[in-house]
């Protein structure tokens, strides 16, 4: 009887120690986030492009209360395939990320400028989508972009003064450079091959 009691107590103590050890390990797990799974499905971007197009269409039908208060700096959206292919991945990523940053600033300004409430939802969607694209880029192991101190003087930019032009630039940028970058992403290439 004494032996049984001893055995039982030994087993219970061992189990308790094991549980405690597991809890401690989980708690003290290194805080680094685990690498994100790469988002290679372009349907996500297609969804963003569609919503940006809806915003552009809505802006075209807007008569009043939908104007930029001041000129904004926007990236160039022009793409020539052979020129694009000559750039390496880093340059491409930098180009895309700086352009996204510029667009975020411009859309934030547009959000404050536009008084038409119907457009507010579209603009909010577009801002949210830009942040999601940043997350997608992050998942593809593309380095974070450190924004410059001021937007002026950046190469490959130009300025627009109308809200319609801004949204058109927004759509064209997503359709062009962002998509090409995601299409050629290295992380996605490994999955495909």
């Amino acid at each position, binding site marked *: 009887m004494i032996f049984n009691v001893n055995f039982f107590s030994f087993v219970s103590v061992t189990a308790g120690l094991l549980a405690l050890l597991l809890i401690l390990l989980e708690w003290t797990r290194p805080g680094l986030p685990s690498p994100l799974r790469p988002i290679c499905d*372009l349907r996500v971007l*297609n969804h963003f*492009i*569609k919503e940006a197009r809806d915003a552009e269409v809505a802006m075209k039908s807007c008569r009043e209360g939908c104007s930029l208060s001041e000129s904004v700096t926007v990236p*160039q*959206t*022009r*793409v*020539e*395939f052979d020129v694009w292919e000559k750039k390496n991945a880093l340059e491409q990523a930098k180009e895309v990320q700086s352009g996204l940053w510029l667009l975020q600033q411009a859309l934030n300004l547009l959000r404050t400028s536009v008084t038409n409430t119907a457009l507010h939802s579209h603009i909010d969607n577009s801002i949210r989508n830009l942040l999601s694209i940043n997350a997608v880029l992050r998942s593809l192991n593309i380095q974070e972009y450190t924004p410059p101190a001021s937007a002026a003087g950046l190469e490959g*930019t*130009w300025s627009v003064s109308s809200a319609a032009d801004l949204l*058109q630039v927004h759509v*064209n*940028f997503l*359709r*062009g*450079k962002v*998509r*090409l970058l995601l*299409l050629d992403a290295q992380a996605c290439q490994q999955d495909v091959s």
Partner: protein
Amino acid sequence: MSIYQSKNINNSTLQHSPMSEFLVSIFLVFLSSSVPSRKENSSRCPLRVLRAAGGKRLFICHLNRTQMFVQMDIRVDRDGTQIHSRSLLVELVFLLDPPANVTVSSTGQQGQLNVSWVPPPLKYMDDSMMYEVSYTTADSDVGQVEVARACSELILRGLQPGTKYKVRVRVKLDGISYSGYWSAWSDPVFMETLPAELDLLIVSLTLIISLVLTGLSLAILLSHRRFLVKKIWPTIPTPDSKFQGLFTVYGGNFQEWLGRTNGGLWLTPAFFTPEECPSPLEVLSEFSLCPSLASPPLPPKASKALTRSRKEEMDVRKGLDEREPLERVDAALTEGWRTTTHDQWLLDRLRAFHRNPMPSSQSSLLESQDAYVTLNANNRNEDEHLDDILEETLPLEVLFASRKTVLCESHSDLGSVQQSSGSGRLSSQSSFEYPNHMWMPKGPGYTYMAVADSGVSMDYSPMSRVEDIGKVVIYANEYRNEIPAHGRPFPSRQHLVSGDG
């Protein structure tokens, strides 16, 4: 560098001088980033004319540098003056060549075809392409269309087996990143689907179901075959059975048949229809009056006739052999008419009669010492008889049990009556005689048992005693359903029988 075709913008203005060529140049102006100037970064593109169907002309200009995702302003000048201008995005107006190398093959399954093609060789646009596969049978004009996205093969399903199909493919950009117009249809490819084959499961199931249904219908038919036979082939009643030999022997000659059979066959038809309601029988015993004449043995039919019911009087022949027919008569008279000692007595009387030949007269008959019982269902006759009825006591009483219901029962049932006991009893106590003038014998050779039925009472009695012959008169007694303990005294030889009243 891919080739881009610029469609002719406006046909009408260029058609009024069809014979000469126009020097048309296109100024392409690209939206500049620095200064939104019209002339900056603009380039000229020489046009090439291509004749198309319907008298149309296509002006084609090859672009050296294609800038996409940016607005392009196009201006068409003729002889220095602008005739057209338009702004567009190049990636949104793609018109591609149709897919090449369209191949159609069989997948190995019923009603399926595998279509594969080579997409247009454009970089970065493979997953933006949308295909339409048109398949139609060779004879019909209307075809069906299947859409495939971002893939270069498609399996057509639901096709008719064993038919030839024409398959074509065309392509378009899906319109999200790139957009454009439908390409021309590829060259049609003809392919025949696999021939139809019998599905084993369906065939076996059909066989089983048909077998089950046939079995069921046969079972139903067989179970109702009598009903069906009656309905389809109804039996036409013929009188052949009633008239034996009428058609077979005499060929339908009724008179001949009557003459030959001497009416004796009257018995047989009635025998076969026992359901006729029996009425009181006239039981006559027949024997030859002349000693030389040996009366024929009573045919067995006579006994049966006793139980038969007829509305009219019926004669029963009896032979010399009285005992047996009497017994048969007794047996036949299932009213329970029992004459146990009576038989012996009657036989004695018969013998006595034979020894003393009877004159053929009614009175002699009546004076015969034979017992006779006549059952007369005719009330009218009985009423006449009632006048001459005298009471008499007889040494021999005939008691019988009868049931009223027996009168209306069939022959087969009469035999079973003996075992039944009714609530009442009836008896007849005496015999009676017809007065001479009232009795019409059927003919010589008959002994009669006269019975008078007043409708209420029935009396059966033999002509019991020789000494009573002369004085016996006919009378009727009460037909009582009771124990004959009261009323007229019963002779010693009466037998109580029971029966329903």
